[in-house]
């Protein structure tokens, strides 16, 4: 499981050719220059900043919009079945097939080259809606009824009752939304013209040598793009531990 990672890190700290035969198990003359080079060679802080803004935007709106949509989907209403079908089928449309119309639409909205434009297609994701939906449905109806009798309106129900009991779903949403927006490459490639608006994966790709890179720089790049996502996951980790529901029902 971990072997590829070890190799990534090993080659990230050396300059040796990864295709050399036989492959070496330990890095020879390790150095951190690759990481430093990346920082100085390109406007790394700017790209980092751009990526952060876009990801924060995406994560925040995902949690809000997805929770709302999921809540609506837990209720029964005419056309619910059709609506579910619509959501499911939206998932089945690959991004590669939507590049041109997506660009034209974003252009019409005047969002080219902007943070909102970068985030727009990802502001809500269907997978995460279903994650929330599953979590909401697992909350015992009795709790919801109790809240309603107490006079709470829909928003409050979500905020005070459902969300606290769906910490795992929120964590999943945050992690996934962050990863998807952080790693996005094709969309930022098309939507940004100015180098100052580019996101990290895009910016780092500029750094790669012009002949398909086989040395450590590539892996330094991969490692650096990877780091924040791991960090977010580690922070959200503890939400996957069980133990929060049981208390509420018993009481």
């Amino acid at each position, binding site marked *: 499981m971990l072997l590829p990672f070890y190799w990534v890190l090993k080659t990230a700290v050396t300059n040796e*050719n990864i*295709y*050399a*035969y036989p492959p070496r198990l330990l890095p020879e003359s390790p150095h951190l220059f690759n990481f430093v080079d990346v920082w100085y060679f390109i406007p790394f802080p700017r790209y980092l900043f751009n990526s952060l803004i876009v990801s924060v935007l995406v994560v925040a709106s995902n949690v809000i919009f997805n929770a709302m949509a999921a809540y609506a989907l837990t209720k029964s209403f005419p056309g619910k079945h059709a609506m579910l079908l619509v959501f499911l089928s939206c998932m089945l449309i690959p991004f590669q097939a939507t*590049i*041109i119309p997506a*660009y*034209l639409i974003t*252009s019409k909205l005047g969002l080219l080259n902007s943070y909102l434009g970068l985030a727009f297609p990802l502001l809500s994701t269907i997978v995460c809606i279903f994650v929330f939906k599953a979590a909401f449905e697992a909350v015992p109806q009795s709790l919801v009824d109790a809240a309603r009798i107490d006079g709470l309106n829909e928003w409050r129900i979500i905020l005070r009752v459902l969300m606290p009991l769906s910490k795992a779903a929120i964590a999943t949403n945050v992690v996934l939304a962050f990863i998807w927006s952080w790693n996005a490459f*094709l969309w930022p*490639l*098309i939507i940004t*013209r100015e180098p100052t608006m580019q996101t990290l994966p895009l910016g780092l*790709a*500029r750094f*790669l*040598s*012009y*002949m*398909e890179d*086989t040395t450590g720089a590539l892996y330094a790049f991969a490692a650096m793009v990877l780091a924040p996502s791991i960090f977010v996951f580690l922070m959200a980790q503890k939400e996957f531990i069980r133990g929060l529901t049981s208390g509420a029902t018993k009481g």
Partner: protein
Amino acid sequence: MISRRALLKSGAGAVATTLAAPAIAQAPKKISFLTWNIIDQEPMIRGWITRFVKDRPGVEVEWLDKKGPEIPVFYQTQLVAGTPPDVINTQGALGLEYAAQGALLDLTPRLKAETSVSSRFNADYLSNWAYEGNNYMLPFYITKTLLFYNKPMFQTAGLSGPPRSFDAIIDAAQRMTSGEASGFLTLNFDWLYWPLYAMNGVDLLSKDLTHPTFNTPTAIEVTDRLAKATEAGAINKISWTGRWVEPNGAFAAGNVGMLHAHSPAYFFFKGQGKWVTPETLGVAHAPGGFATPNSHGLGISKASKNADLAWDFLKFVTNEGAQELGVNRKLVTGNTAVDAKNLADLEKSDPLVYSILKTQLEHTDKMVGNWRLGNDSKVKEAFWPELQNVLLGRKDAKSALADAERKVTRELKRG
């Protein structure tokens, strides 16, 4: 959607007609310059832009660089949206495809009017981008295939020099094959392997590009021999399965006798191969002097709003810029005067690179694999998988070439 396209078309038409009128500079005039994977030359290009705008007040040049696989996506999207970069740099036959689509400005009238410009280029390379008789691009930097060979391996096998015929290639390859060592490797993208067929007198299409001419007994025999040699290990399998890293890496490892590739391959395998020195690396033309070009061209988008300025920039880059480019990247630019001077300097400073680059300017009348097709990628897609099937032993030559002929005919008919 349809109305939008109609709007686009009429918009493009309006722009085209106003291009004829002289441009009066009022607001800052801006052109965008898209290059293909040349980011390592950032200081040089920024220098060009600075010098270019210095003499032209009110002009801005926006520079974008994208890697090869990213350019079609980027450019096509911009094209549909009506905002393509003014000056674009493409590699290989992509320029022809864009020309066929109507995305590029026809440069023929300008070249006819300014003979000082058209005469500065090597005519054979300039015609690389002539589609239906019109010129759409100027050479940015040019390359074509040649034969690199491993001198020590040749000596061990008792071979005196590079092969001078197809039979000699196969023979030499077989002699150098043993254990992990193989005799011959070629790149396969963008028709780079075609000289192997050209030297046997096989051409892909008729002169008027209307029907395939490759389904001949000779071609079948050649394909069969190549397949057998591949199976025996004389021709390294990577020739037919690899892209860029694998073939060059294999040659760099030092156990491949010959590499049939274009000049940039040298810099790649030299970096990886410790055995490569002027004494051990042999440089030669492929038998018959046949070679497939794989050049970079510069063109102007038809939808450009500042075509004259873009043309100015083109002239600047291929003249003042070419000198620097040739020196920095050690390549041939297609600008004959610049190349002559750079090569003369290289002869003294780096004889090996000089010998490699010299081949790029010789036998330019024997360039093959460069059919002026607007649907080159489709024809390639119809032909190459079938050929690959034979060369990797999955199909026999006769039926594969027949199938390929069928498919290519379909593509050509579709236009």
